[in-house]
């Protein structure tokens, strides 16, 4: 039995995992393929990607032409269920009434969590990114280096399928030969950006995204990922043959019914279920981690959301992968005489150093792209080219006024028409309507492109979460209260993004839409809005200043691991999901090793 109820769940498992997204999915995959008995507690409902993904639906098919609403913040067809900036009955609070000190928390209550809708941008952290403090004296070094994680990046990329190229650029690691799928051909707007980038010194290269551009090599990869494990090889080979390569249509944010991109529900969970070692209990809202007299975790107490009844499952190991802040909340809500300020919190660092990514954007209109012949720009449903950070030397020399870098994500081209597509066009057409508007729409469609900057935030003492002393969710569980503050590093970085993007638009022969916002405070997105929430239980070299060791294992309770973004000691500009998976695999290897040795 794979999907269980509180009544049919087994009494005890080797490992109980809270959450089924990137971190929970990867941990479950690695553990079950190597024979461990695992239960996943998922707070959301079960989700059938093959049946529920709107693959060819157009915006016309959706209510309000697919526009975002409070029920579906990112649009009707977005693969988020029972989630978004607010979840009914599950509030969170802000310690400050000031809008710029607000943290916005995106949650997704469904099997696979936020992996179902993510942008599939899969960038490796580089050498500098694990040792940022050594490089510029700010933030924290990780207790591990790039070399420790690289083998796991290799494995994750081989498992999930990532397209891209190896460019040999600074702090932008190459993958070993034969790992990456071929990069898709660039679109015209991307070629134009590359040309403009050359003029202003911004390198534009193939992006890395978790989308298969060819069939999985099911004959070679399983043996590389699971040496000496014929059963795991057989299961993975069979599953890889069920995944189709991208057919160059439909946006990735809806999820992918043909399993061409990575989401936990299509890549991690199916082979894990095929081992017979994985049970999944949906609609189970974890409430507290239980301990025995010796201070070891014994399992997890949860609320069955379908009945409101409380249940408990036991495990030799408890893995938290509920999303960084949700895992923090679970630790803080697991108070005991031994841990009066929350579980695994003897350092007082649980909840500290919450990080997001710096975000700012700007777009342009490009006459060279007007009136083009019809071209299919759908491609992989996301960007084909991007710009990695390129000013490492200038930055280290102190010439930029901010300490960490950003990458640039590109958008544009002849995307599927959406309800908002002519909004703002009147400023260019001077208010045309009638036959003139129809001519203008034909002329300008596809002539817009733009940039989203995604930059590193340095952890700071003013960005953290704690339990709200007054507010509880609908099950009576205390909720999180967020404190947030960007530092000058992030604010100046956001202003630098605006200058760069305006320069790029100019170098591409375009006109900026709107005005570049040179006040970084106004240009920067709110905390949490980029949905790269990490930190809150950072890893470190000692128990006094960090929550986990280098294996994402809490210092205080050896059989608790965190495999989501919580142990991140820094938040490089690279999107965190690939690193979450690599560290989850590494942590799972540690668990297996310690289980075999009888240490856990």
């Amino acid at each position: 039995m794979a999907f269980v109820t509180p009544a049919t769940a087994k009494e005890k498992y080797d490992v109980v995992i809270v959450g089924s997204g990137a971190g929970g999915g990867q941990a479950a995959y690695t553990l079950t393929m190597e024979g461990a008995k695992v239960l996943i507690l998922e707070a959301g409902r079960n989700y059938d990607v093959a049946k529920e993904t709107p693959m060819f639906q157009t915006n016309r098919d959706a209510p309000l032409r697919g526009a975002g609403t409070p029920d579906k913040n990112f649009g009707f067809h977005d693969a988020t269920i029972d989630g978004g900036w607010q979840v009914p009955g599950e509030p969170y609070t802000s310690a400050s009434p000031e809008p710029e000190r607000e943290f916005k928390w995106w949650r997704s209550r469904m099997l696979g969590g936020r992996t179902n809708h993510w942008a599939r941008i899969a960038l490796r952290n580089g050498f500098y990114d694990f040792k940022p403090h050594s490089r510029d004296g700010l933030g924290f070094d990780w207790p591990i280096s790039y070399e420790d994680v690289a083998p796991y990046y290799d494995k994750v990329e081989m498992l999930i399928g990532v397209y891209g190229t190896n460019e040999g650029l600074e702090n932008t690691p190459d993958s070993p030969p034969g790992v990456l799928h071929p990069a898709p051909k660039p679109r015209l707007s991307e070629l134009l950006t590359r040309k403009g980038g050359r003029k202003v010194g911004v390198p534009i290269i193939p992006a890395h995204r978790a989308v298969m551009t060819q069939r999985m090599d099911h004959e070679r990869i399983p043996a590389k990922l699971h040496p000496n494990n014929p059963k795991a090889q057989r299961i993975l080979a069979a599953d890889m043959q069920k995944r189709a390569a991208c057919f160059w249509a439909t946006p990735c944010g809806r999820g992918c019914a043909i399993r061409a991109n990575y989401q936990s529900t299509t890549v991690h969970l199916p082979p894990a279920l095929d081992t017979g070692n994985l049970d999944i209990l949906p609609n189970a809202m974890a409430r507290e981690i239980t301990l025995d007299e010796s201070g070891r975790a014994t399992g997890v107490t949860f609320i069955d959301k379908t009945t409101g009844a409380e249940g408990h499952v036991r495990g030799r190991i408890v893995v938290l992968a509920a999303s960084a802040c949700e895992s923090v909340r679970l630790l803080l809500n697991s108070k005991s005489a031994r841990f009066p300020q929350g579980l695994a919190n003897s350092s007082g660092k649980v909840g500290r150093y919450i990080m997001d990514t710096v975000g700012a954007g700007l777009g342009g209109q490009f006459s060279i792209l007007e009136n083009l012949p019809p071209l299919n720009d759908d491609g992989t449903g996301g960007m084909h080219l991007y710009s990695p950070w390129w000013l490492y030397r200038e930055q280290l020399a102190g010439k930029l006024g901010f300490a960490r870098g950003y990458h640039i994500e590109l958008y544009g081209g002849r995307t599927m028409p959406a309800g908002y597509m002519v909004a703002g066009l009147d400023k260019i057409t001077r208010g045309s309507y009638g036959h003139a508007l129809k001519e203008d729409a034909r002329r300008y469609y596809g002539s817009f492109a733009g940039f989203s900057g995604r930059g590193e935030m340095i952890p700071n003492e003013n960005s953290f979460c704690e339990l709200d002393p007054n507010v509880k969710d609908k099950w009576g569980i205390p909720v999180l209260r967020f404190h947030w503050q960007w530092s000058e590093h992030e604010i100046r970085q956001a202003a630098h993004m605006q200058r760069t993007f305006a320069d790029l638009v100019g170098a591409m022969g375009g006109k900026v839409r709107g005005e570049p916002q040179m006040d970084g405070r106004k240009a920067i997105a709110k905390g949490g809005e980029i949905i790269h929430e990490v930190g809150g239980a950072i890893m470190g070299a000692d128990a006094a200043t960090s929550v986990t060791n280098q294996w994402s294992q809490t210092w205080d309770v050896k059989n608790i691991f965190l495999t989501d973004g919580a142990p991140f000691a820094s938040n490089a500009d690279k999107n965190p999901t690939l690193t979450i998976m690599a560290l989850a695999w590494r942590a799972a290897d540690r668990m297996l090793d310690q289980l075999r040795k009888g240490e856990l």
Partner: protein
Amino acid sequence: MNAPELPRIDRREAVKWMMTAAAGMMLARQRGFGADPATLAPITAKGYGTDPDLIKTYNPGDLWPLTFTAAQRRTAAALCDTIIPADAHSPAASAVGVHDFIDEWVSAPYPEQQKDRPVILDGLAWLDAESQRRFEVDFADAVQRQKTAICDEICFEPDAKPELLQQAKFFTRFRDLTAGGFYTTPEGMKDLRYVGNVPLATFDGPPQEVIEKLGLG
């Protein structure tokens, strides 16, 4: 389905009455053009929730009741077609139901749409009143030249006279909704020559001759 025609004389009388009654309030209403939601029937329907069926095809009216009166619907259709008329490439907006999409929009139980509701409804009422004042016909019955005479004054906010600024904001919003509603239909996407949303065996990128013509090689 066509809206039932209202008796013409009654309607014209009604509009004249409204204009007279409203005359004294004009100054007050300038600022509040479309901003007296208390006089509008409240939207009490529920939204589609956080877990709707994403596979289904939805039509306006499927999820919450539409609220245009017959007269509003008729005026909206006329304005839709003034903004997106039929031409050699594609039909007029109302021929593919865009006015029903706008009805769905202003009838939706969500904050953004609720904010648009008084703007759109008062804008439609103003269009008829203005058409009556200048041409003694409803907007929908005005000839093209008359419709254009009205719309030309409100089609571009920076050029609008100060006393017509609220009307210009209404027109901008209505145009965005009309064009967005139209270009998301199969007919509209075809007009723009959007050729995606079909599975392909390979993605070949733009043709080499286009790349070279644009100097992007």
